[in-house]
């Protein structure tokens, strides 16, 4: 289709160095961006990295974003039913023991820990003291006894009762989860103008959220690129990279054509794996020894090349600049041959 005449003069010129154009189009506004780690509006409940730091985070292909978030849509039919949505929400947010207690008494000598549960918080999360107790009773190093609905007593019964070990066990208890999905620090239910509810979370765990009934599995969103690749595949990851870059740039008030952003995303993913832009990724895994050596870690690339007997075919831009040849991009892509005999037929004209 694209070669169609409809595109005519509006099509790209073959040879165009689109990589450099894309890189410059994203890098140039970067100079004008703020380096604030995050500028949350203060009121919004989810916090994410914004601006230049987020661009660098994406382009570096960090294994985990600093502030992972998710947006969960719900299946048709229950999306406007608050009670049902709340039911789902309850399964998502990870509630730890420390979230539902007012205070605790510990006695390291006898190895006892008494938890005083917070009634309000229990009802907010819709759990009872019993759930907490039964959850804790799965631990092998503690005996659990529920005193009343708001008090739980625990006794350490593990081997070798040093104060340090008892303490570690107790700290563990406070940090252990009662309900919810691992890694979801906070989930909030939000209502859109048309009355549909969505759940926004701090922390991301696609695999687990997908298992919950009522969650729209076809419209899950997470800003964790590697997780998306694991769950949905490389194409989804590519789209996510492009989408995230686009959002960040837009939010900073710059307009960058999506094709440049998509090219960066494709550069990172076209091999089927997520590669970072930079020394350990795209730039560091180029075929050409010279291109790699001219970028970073010069000596390492030369010595390794000699060990493995690598061959540099001098096709890229960096190599040709190095050896002083015309580069094979842009106007350099064109090769002309002339029949020498034909040249002789040309007669010189007199200049006026």
């Amino acid at each position: 289709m694209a070669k169609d005449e409809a595109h005519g003069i509006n099509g790209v010129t073959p040879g165009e160095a689109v990589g450099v154009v894309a890189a410059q189009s994203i890098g140039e506004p970067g100079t004008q961006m703020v380096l604030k780690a995050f500028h949350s509006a203060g009121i919004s409940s989810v916090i994410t990295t914004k601006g230049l730091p987020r661009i660098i985070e994406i382009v570096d292909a960090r294994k985990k974003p600093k502030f992972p978030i998710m947006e969960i849509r719900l299946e048709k039919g229950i999306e406007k039913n608050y009670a049902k949505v709340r039911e789902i929400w309850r399964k998502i947010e990870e509630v730890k023991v420390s979230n539902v207690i007012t205070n605790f008494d510990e006695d390291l000598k006898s190895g006892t820990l008494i938890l005083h549960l917070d009634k309000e918080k229990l009802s907010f999360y819709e759990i009872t003291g019993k759930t907490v107790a039964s959850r804790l009773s799965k631990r092998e190093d503690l005996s659990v006894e529920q005193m009343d609905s708001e008090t739980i007593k625990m006794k350490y019964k593990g081997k070798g009762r040093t104060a340090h070990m008892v303490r570690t066990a107790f700290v563990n208890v406070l940090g252990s989860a009662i309900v919810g999905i691992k890694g979801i620090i906070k989930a909030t239910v939000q209502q859109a103008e048309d009355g549909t509810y969505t759940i926004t979370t701090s922390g991301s765990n696609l695999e687990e959220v997908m298992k919950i009934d009522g969650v729209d599995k076809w419209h899950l969103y997470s800003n964790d690129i590697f997780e998306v690749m694991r769950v949905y595949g490389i194409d989804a990851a590519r789209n996510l990279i492009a989408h995230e870059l686009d959002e960040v740039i837009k939010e900073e008030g710059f307009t960058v054509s999506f094709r440049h952003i998509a090219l960066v995303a494709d550069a990172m993913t076209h091999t089927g794996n997520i590669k970072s832009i930079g020394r350990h990724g795209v730039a560091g895994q180029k075929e050409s020894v010279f291109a790699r050596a001219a970028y970073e870690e010069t000596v390492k690339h030369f010595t390794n090349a000699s060990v493995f007997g690598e061959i540099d075919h001098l096709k890229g831009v960096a190599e040709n600049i190095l050896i002083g040849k015309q580069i094979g991009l842009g106007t350099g892509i064109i090769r002309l041959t002339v029949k020498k005999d034909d040249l002789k037929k040309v007669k010189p004209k007199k200049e006026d």
Partner: protein
Amino acid sequence: MQAEGIEYIKFTTLSPERIKRMSVAKLIVPDTYNEDGYPIDGGLVDQRLGVIDPGLKCKTCGGRAKTCPGHFGHIELVRPVIHPEFSKTIYLLLQSTCFQCHRLLLTEAQVQEIQPVIKTFVSAEEPEEAAVTTVDITTLASVFGEQDSRAILIKKLKSVKKCPHCTTPQPKLKLERPTFFYVDGNKQKPDEIRDWLSKIPDSDLKLIGIDATATRPEWFILTTLLVPPVNVRPSITLESGERSEDDLTHKLVDIMRINQRLEQDIDAGAPQIIIDDLWELLQYQVTTYFNNETPGVPVARHRSTRPLKTLAQRLKGKEGRLRYNLSGKRVNFSARTVISSDASLTVNQVGIPSRIAENLTVPIYVALWNVDYARKYIDSKAYPTAINVIMKDGIRKRVSDVNREELSKGLAPGMIVERQLVDGDLALFNRQPTLHRMSIMAHTVKVLPGRTMRLHVSVAMPYNADFDGDEMNLHIPQSLEAMAEARYLMQPKDQVLSARDGRPILFTEEDEIIGAYLLTQDNIKFAKDDACRMLAGIDVYELPKASKDGTYTGKSLFSKTLPKGLNFEGKTADGKTTIKNGELVDGVVDEKMIGGGGGTLIAKIFDEYGSDICMHFLLNVAKLSLMMTAKVGMTVSVRDYYNSDAILKERTKIVNEVESKANDILQKYKNNQLERLPGYTRKETFELIVMAQLEEARHLAENVLKKSLTVENRAFLMAKVRARGNILNFVQTNMLLGQQSIRGRRPSRGYTGRILPYFKRSSKLPAAKGFIKSSFFDGLQPTEFYMHAMGARDSAMTKSLVTAVSGYLQRRLVNAMQDFYVGKDLSVRDASGGLVQTIYGGDGLDPTRVRIAKGTM
């Protein structure tokens, strides 16, 4: 001057035999010159290695300093020494092979599994078939089902306790950086390791990706050391006549000295301990010769305690050979000076000081066609004249009064005449940092008096230049191809639309915008003489149709800048603007149409009428608008920043409101009622919310101001039309400065628990934390002034940090993607033809023309 014929470059390691074959001299004397200042035979500047002194002759090729390329020599090391850069590879090989039988620690079955991958590698001996040249251990490891790499394979081979071939239990290996190896705790001598490595069969090496024809691992242990020619390490003669040798020569002298002592001691039968000590010293010297920054090795220093710059340091980093001399090269035919603005130039021109024009040259490639044209320049005695004539044999002859006639007569096709720069030549103009492609454009030369290069203000935007002392570079293309490329692709008039978003990057600014806005107001009228004067300014000599009262409207004058037949509908801040058949019918012209806020009108004209008409439109609008601005008079006074009592009352209200809200939050925080934001502590949550609340003050003030100010206030007019300044400036001068911030938070450091001693300790009140109630007009309170200074310093520092961070991001992006290009099938390819996108951008469209193709314009 192209390096034709280099098809590919293969990297290998040198064998001792090869080194000896390359070498023209075995060096034996650890010294350079004798007392007479003459090179010692067999010394480090032996004349067989080439000569650098004029007057001496190379003993190998007979060439002089300029013609002799230099020749390699060698040193025979008495005891072998490990090449430090390969010690990791050596360690890897030792771990992968058997201690006894030196075979790879893989079973036949595992080898079979690997074979398919290896095949592609092995066939790489035929360079044409070398589809996969980088198959190394990384790829190999993937066969084992692991993604990442070398470490995993080593782990795998390391865990092999028994050799599958000879069933020998494997000893424990250890590498003590950089060059010491231990087998079961016993230190290994380099020759022992050499023995081990040399016994690994070629076929096994292939299995881990090493091409034995290129590299045998025993070559990693040096028995002969290649000595680079003197041309590589020239000595400098100081003013005092003293010679100062290159760092490499110093290092080589050290190596030879130790080598000689070691030889003597061995011959004299010295005790083993002494020999071992010397051997280790030799190892140290060789290690630092290759890389003086090897981790774990003390840095070798010059007499003056300056660290020596040895081989690795020469190549590495920003100032190393690759990035400084090979990726970036120095050029001739260039100029650099301060820039200044010139409104009478076109955006396509650049003003060049005559002194520069006299020194820069443009080549005329003489052919039958242009012999007479070229001869004119040789015959001319004053500017413009020919500077040099390059003869057919490539010899450059300077034109002088002595040889002028001779050269003029002898001029023939095939010669090149270098003439001075004249008006109309094309020159590449550039400002650093070169962040995007519009940072280098081809301008038409206009030779001017003065010492600065001049450019039109509108073209300052793509260069990101201003005239407070900026300097710019100029290059004159020297080949016909380069000239053609500059002419057809690089002129500013063709670069109006940015490839980033397809919007204009050449547009009018500031005074021009305000002029155009005022000119196109509904009630603007001109008498006939005024109208004539204005139009003559843009070279238009016919009047538009007059109104009934005999006057001419501003809109009709503006219409004279528009190309004939233009139809356009655009949005402005004031509403809609309609242009019909080249006439501005309705609405105003503002920054959204002709400025940086979209420049929709410029884009439209560029798309429909092309670069030349677009450029003239831009220049004419600028001129006409400037005349309008000058006629109306744009001036601001203190009055513009003076507030009525009513407004001041509003301000007090705003401040009180914001402060009381902040106080509420503080109370909540103190009463422990504030809900924590995820990922933040209570204190941080409080700070975030309070700060958001206090920053709100500016917005409230802005709304009040917007209601009360009118366009009679010129400063407000400028902000409203987005010619210069913004509402925030107004808020800060008229109402209040608002909350100051440091690293995105309220200021917090200084004295214990407070910023200044005028506040209570741990006070969380707005004023104690950088909230400023005063305006610039009022003047700031001393404490406020201090807070403001803190905020200003913080933003100055952040700014300098951002440039470093984003500069590196830019370098990484460009480096990663520089090889991508659009193929003839509109797919995006990398250097080796790998597919990145099947169709560029999903639609194969040029980013500057997407709007037209998609019909959104």
